[in-house]
């Protein structure tokens, strides 16, 4: 997202407009009011006496409300500063805008105030992929109200715009004749309500206005409470404090709740494209945030467990026990032109579900929830061996059954060219990427622990432990490239090693599947000049056939990826290397005012001096927002051990002093202190 758009959101409803508060969307442009994965307003343009306005300032009051201060005219010199225009906008189920015009003059004034409206009702997928609409549009004009509608068979979406002041309404907008006394003001409320066929279409909805106003105090209080409940960070490093606060506020904004899961908040993946349930992203973000706010993990586990696959459905790539990939509510999903109702084509979320459940127990000791989720956890473990063993060799592999609209790459690097041999050729399917085996190993080890300590099923625990040990032994034999001393990124359909050097090997450290004797070589590659850019570890090593420093998964640096690799480095005792990675990513965050993008370019730090944001990266993106949190955990060496929290800091010298106060968990609340002692410059120069 570009920086000059204003985004306010609540649940899966959000608005993207320009700095004046106007929306002028084209078919491929992401501005508009979006709700339930549909654009419900694509034109919203304010003029006063036929003139557009110029922004003086924009206040993001909270993530769900914005105030625009404007003056008439569009030049650099304000010809008429005798008027001020204020648009105060807040999002609920639709949005509410209070439009106020102040007359600073000694004379009364008559104004034509006009709001142009329009809507293309594009499905988010259509905006993303620039597709054409198949239905028909209709517009209904009433007193002070205009209804924009879109119909395709029984599918119907509409947007109703109502003004509190008398307006002349035509099919393209509302015009107000405002007479303002000297030093007086004129105000109208504008309500934009989203109507969905089969849900709220037939209801009278006059209560919306008061509804949307009522909602805000609780939203505001919710944000305060959210920040108060999180541990407090004290540091001599101002930038780190800013990044931490930004992360907390953005995570609050990305909490996602809809009428399909009332009173639940789980992390959505990112704005604007990914304001929905994503299995993988919600799990990774919950893992990152666990030491800070464990309730995200609880709601993620509950919600994904309840929506776990229950049957075989090729169109949705669904299997019993599989954790969903993505849920969407738009037109293309409705007509099964996309399989997202929900779509299950994702090979990592299922083992990661068990990993998150165990990590949640280690932090919170919440046995009640772990017992309640025994069924989905067992079904997830069963999926690994029963449904994911597509090559018949005991490894998780993926191959979409929905050949038309399913996902080819069902690992986190889900773009088409992410998995390749060193020479750039692409392997066939099924593919068994290496990190999936790490997650499966970790799921079995952790599942065994839960079976022994919470579910009281020692036989199941024994079985899982045996399977885990066997998997680790085979993996270290089958994936290891002995000449290069790292793990293949995947096994192809013939069981052959796919040999490109990638960041995937870092996730193996996190999962614990790496033989101790091989860890040093893996770390040498991760921190070596082909993978480490100075800002972080690239998704693919420089020198590989498909390497491109601004290729989505073939050379860019992903903060989320790095945060898990840093955790893995710590797990294998490479504390100083973990500190180097943490420092690079946190330094990069400073350039984005604490809001890390999804990815930035893999250029060498010493060449560009600043991190180059990936061109179309989403921001805020949940697992980038979570990355600084996990890096804090990693640097402070926070690790639950029974009823205690172990604190073993290893901080880069540049960070100075850190105090993380009131870390919640089964121990109550404890504080962690650390001082930067790792000389990262020494370590970095040694690596070159």
């Amino acid at each position, binding site marked *: 997202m570009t920086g000059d758009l204003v985004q306010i959101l609540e649940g899966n409803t959000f608005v993207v407009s320009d700095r004046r508060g106007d929306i002028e969307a084209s078919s491929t442009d992401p501005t508009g009011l979006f709700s339930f994965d549909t654009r419900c307003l694509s034109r919203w343009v304010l003029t006063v006496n036929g003139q557009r306005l110029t922004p003086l300032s924009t206040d993001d009051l909270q993530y769900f409300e914005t105030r625009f201060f404007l003056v008439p005219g569009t030049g650099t010199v304000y010809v008429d500063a005798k008027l001020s225009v204020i648009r105060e906008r807040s999002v609920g189920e639709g949005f509410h805008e209070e439009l106020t015009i102040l007359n600073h003059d000694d004379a009364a004034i008559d104004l034509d105030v006009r709001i142009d409206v329009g809507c293309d009702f594009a499905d988010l997928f259509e905006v993303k992929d620039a597709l054409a609409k198949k239905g028909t549009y209709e517009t209904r004009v009433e007193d002070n109200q205009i209804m924009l509608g879109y119909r395709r068979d029984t*599918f119907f979406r509409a947007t109703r715009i109502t003004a509190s002041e008398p307006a002349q309404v035509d099919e393209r907008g509302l015009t107000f004749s405002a007479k303002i006394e000297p030093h007086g003001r004129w105000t109208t409320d504008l309500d934009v309500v989203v109507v969905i066929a*089969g*849900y709220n279409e037939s209801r009278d909805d006059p209560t919306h206005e008061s509804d949307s106003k009522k909602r805000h105090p609780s939203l505001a209080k919710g944000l305060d409470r959210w920040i108060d409940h999180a541990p407090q960070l004290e540091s001599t490093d101002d930038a780190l404090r800013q990044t931490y606060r930004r992360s907390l506020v953005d995570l609050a904004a990305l909490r996602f709740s809809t009428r399909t899961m009332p009173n639940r908040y789980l992390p959505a993946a990112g704005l604007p494209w990914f304001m929905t349930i994503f299995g993988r992203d919600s799990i990774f973000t919950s893992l990152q945030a666990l030491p800070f706010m464990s309730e995200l993990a609880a709601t993620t586990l509950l919600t994904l467990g*309840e929506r776990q696959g229950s*049957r075989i459905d090729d169109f949705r790539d669904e299997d019993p026990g599989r954790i969903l990939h993505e849920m969407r509510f738009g037109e293309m999903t409705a*007509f099964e032109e996309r399989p997202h*109702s*929900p779509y299950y084509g994702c090979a990592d979320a299922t083992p990661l579900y068990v990993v998150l459940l165990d990590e949640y127990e280690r932090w919170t000791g919440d046995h009640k929830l772990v017992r*309640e*989720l025994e069924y989905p956890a067992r079904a997830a473990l069963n999926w690994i061996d029963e449904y994911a063993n597509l090559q018949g060799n005991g490894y998780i592999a993926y191959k979409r059954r929905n050949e038309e609209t399913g996902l080819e790459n069902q690992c986190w690097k889900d773009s088409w060219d992410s998995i390749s041999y060193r020479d750039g050729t692409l392997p066939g399917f099924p593919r068994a990427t290496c990190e999936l085996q790490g997650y499966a190993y970790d799921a079995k080890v952790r599942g065994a622990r839960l079976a022994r300590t919470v579910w009281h099923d020692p036989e199941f625990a024994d079985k899982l432990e045996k399977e885990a040990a066997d998997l680790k032994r085979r993996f270290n034999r089958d994936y290891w490239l002995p000449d290069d001393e790292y793990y293949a990124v995947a096994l192809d359909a013939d069981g052959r090693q796919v040999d490109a050097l990638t960041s995937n090997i870092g996730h193996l450290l996190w999962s614990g599947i790496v033989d101790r004797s091989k860890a040093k070589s893996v770390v040498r590659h991760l921190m070596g000049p082909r993978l480490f850019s100075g800002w972080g570890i690239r998704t693919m090593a420089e020198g590989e056939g498909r390497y491109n420093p601004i290729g989505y998964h073939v050379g860019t640096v992903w903060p989320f990826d790095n945060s898990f690799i840093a955790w893995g480095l710590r797990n294998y005792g490479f504390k100083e290397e973990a500190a180097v990675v943490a420092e690079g990513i946190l330094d990069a965050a400073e350039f984005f005012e604490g809001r890390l993008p999804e990815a930035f370019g893999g250029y060498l730090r010493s060449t560009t001096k600043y991190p180059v944001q990936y061109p179309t990266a989403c921001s805020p993106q949940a697992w980038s927002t979570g990355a600084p949190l996990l890096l804090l955990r990693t640097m402070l060496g926070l690790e639950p051990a029974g009823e205690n929290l172990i604190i073993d800091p290893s901080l880069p010298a540049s960070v100075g002093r850190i105090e993380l106060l009131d870390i919640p968990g089964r121990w109550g609340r404890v504080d962690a202190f650390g001082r930067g002692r790792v000389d990262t410059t020494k370590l970095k120069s040694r690596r070159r």
Partner: protein
Amino acid sequence: MPATETAAPAATGAAARFFTELGRSGRLPQLGTVSGTIRFDIVDGSDVERWYVTLAKGDVSVSQNDRESDASARAERALFDGIASGRVNVVAAMLRGLVEVDGDLGLLMVFQKLFPGPPRAGDTER
């Protein structure tokens, strides 16, 4: 057994089979975290066949006797027969406006996984 025998309209066909079997299924651990009652209205001309499904943390009971409900879903019989046999995906149908829903949509989203998947070639299970 739940009181399905008190059904007023003739409760035969795919919908009746689906709900009757559901009532006999006993414990459904895959619904272990949810509780609430859903009312299903199956519309057939001027007749409405009504079923209540009560979920209580994995225990299920089915009835045609009036009771309070937390969510409701209403569909034409032909469509519901398609849903109950796996030929129609209920979530997609809901989004097309063919299943009219109200109340706690979360409950409905969880319940939907009890409907069978689409018939597959060589599938012996269903």
